[in-house]
């Protein structure tokens, strides 16, 4: 997970100050245009977008602090998905929960696939015996070369 630079505009204003604690403007703008159907002919003013970004940041802060409180109550050191859904519930956003759970589950699935992809052992398609045999041969070969 690197810095999500793609949609980030390299704006000198953004660089100074609390850019890191805000959301990328271009991304938010793109999402807004996705939400507003082109048929509506509505456009989002710049200052409205900036305000929207502030609101979004506030939302993240609110949810995470609420989730933090919940996790502390449960004597957990890490804020888990579960805490987020509980926080959403207490904050009156319980209608988001199914979609949130789904997104988290989806991410888990992709993560699993990624892990599997990175696993050479499983990708090789050979049994452990075969692999051990290969190792023995390779060692024998190396020994011969050495001698």
């Amino acid at each position, binding site marked *: 997970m690197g810095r999500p630079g793609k949609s980030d505009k390299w704006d000198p204003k953004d660089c100074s100050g609390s850019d890191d604690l805000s959301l990328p403007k271009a991304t938010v703008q793109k999402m807004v245009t996705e939400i507003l159907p082109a048929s509506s002919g509505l456009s989002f003013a710049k200052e409205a977008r900036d305000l*929207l970004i502030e*609101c979004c940041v506030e939302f993240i802060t609110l949810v995470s602090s609420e989730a933090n409180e919940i996790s502390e109550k449960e004597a957990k050191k890490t*804020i*888990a998905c579960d805490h987020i859904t509980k926080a959403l519930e207490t904050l009156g956003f319980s209608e988001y929960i199914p*979609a949130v759970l789904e997104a988290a589950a989806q991410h*888990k699935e992709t993560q699993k696939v990624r892990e599997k992809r990175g696993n050479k052992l499983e990708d090789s398609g050979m049994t452990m015996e075969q692999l051990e045999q290969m190792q023995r041969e390779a060692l024998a070969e190396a020994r011969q070369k050495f001698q």
Partner: protein
Amino acid sequence: MSTQDSSYAPKSPDLSSFYSSATSDIPQDHNVPGGYSFQAGIGAGPGPHQYSTYQSSVPSSVPSSVPPPTSAPAYGSNDSNNTAFSTYPPQSTTGQQGQYFPPRQQTQFVQTNQSPYILQPPPNHSTSYYSSYPESASPAAYHQLQAQLQPQPSRPQTSQPPAASNQFNPSDPQNNMPPRKIAPAAKQNEIEPSPVKTKFPTARIKRIMQADEEVGKVAQQTPIAVGKALELFMVQLVRKSAEVAREKNSKRITAPMLKQAIGSANEWDFLQDIVAKVGEEKEGGKSSGRTKPESDSDEEGETGEVKKKGRGGRKKKAPA
């Protein structure tokens, strides 16, 4: 089904007696088979061909001749609905004997009433029908005959159309759901496909979360969950402000409109202190005559302060 057949057996003699008494010139041997096959058609059930004719002819006749409303629904539910028909036979075995007799008698009754209309001219016609068609086809021919007869008496009491509209009524409240707070409730049942394909950068969300010093470790899934929630939140907020803009006949969604949208929902109270600052400035500069947002800002002051006290820690850290 077997109960039906047994119930018909005693009925059919009545039929013949009716006809013979009402119109003596009609050949009995032709009409009785007609009555029989008609009932057999119902008993045999799901022939789609029989249905369509049956629907058009019989249910319309029932309300006209039957004043008591209890028998009419029973009849309609048994025969008039295509969908209901397949589900009904199991139930009908229990209640049919009671429910079925009245309609049967009525149809016969109607027929005798109308015999002066058609039974004299068409018999020749119908005999040719029966002679040329196999027995299975005879019910259809019978219904066609009935369809010719019965539209006239059925008109005055059209009880069928209202019944149909009753089926649509339940869906109406679901369709009209302009109030915003109902819409999210509907989302609970099924996850609405998001209109947004762009995702918030997870790393950034995590950083914003951890800007709060109290927030320690965060699980890998957590920023994704927060990102999704944020997405839904943003969709609602943008849509609501678009609604506000539409109300004002504006093509451009401005900060004050966003502010007004935020004022419309209790869950969004936590945004009031943010909107209080920005909204008022912009408003003062751009438009003068808006009273509603200003009245909102009074409340904001209070709620904002309360919220700040409640979640004191994180407010200070954010701008650093």
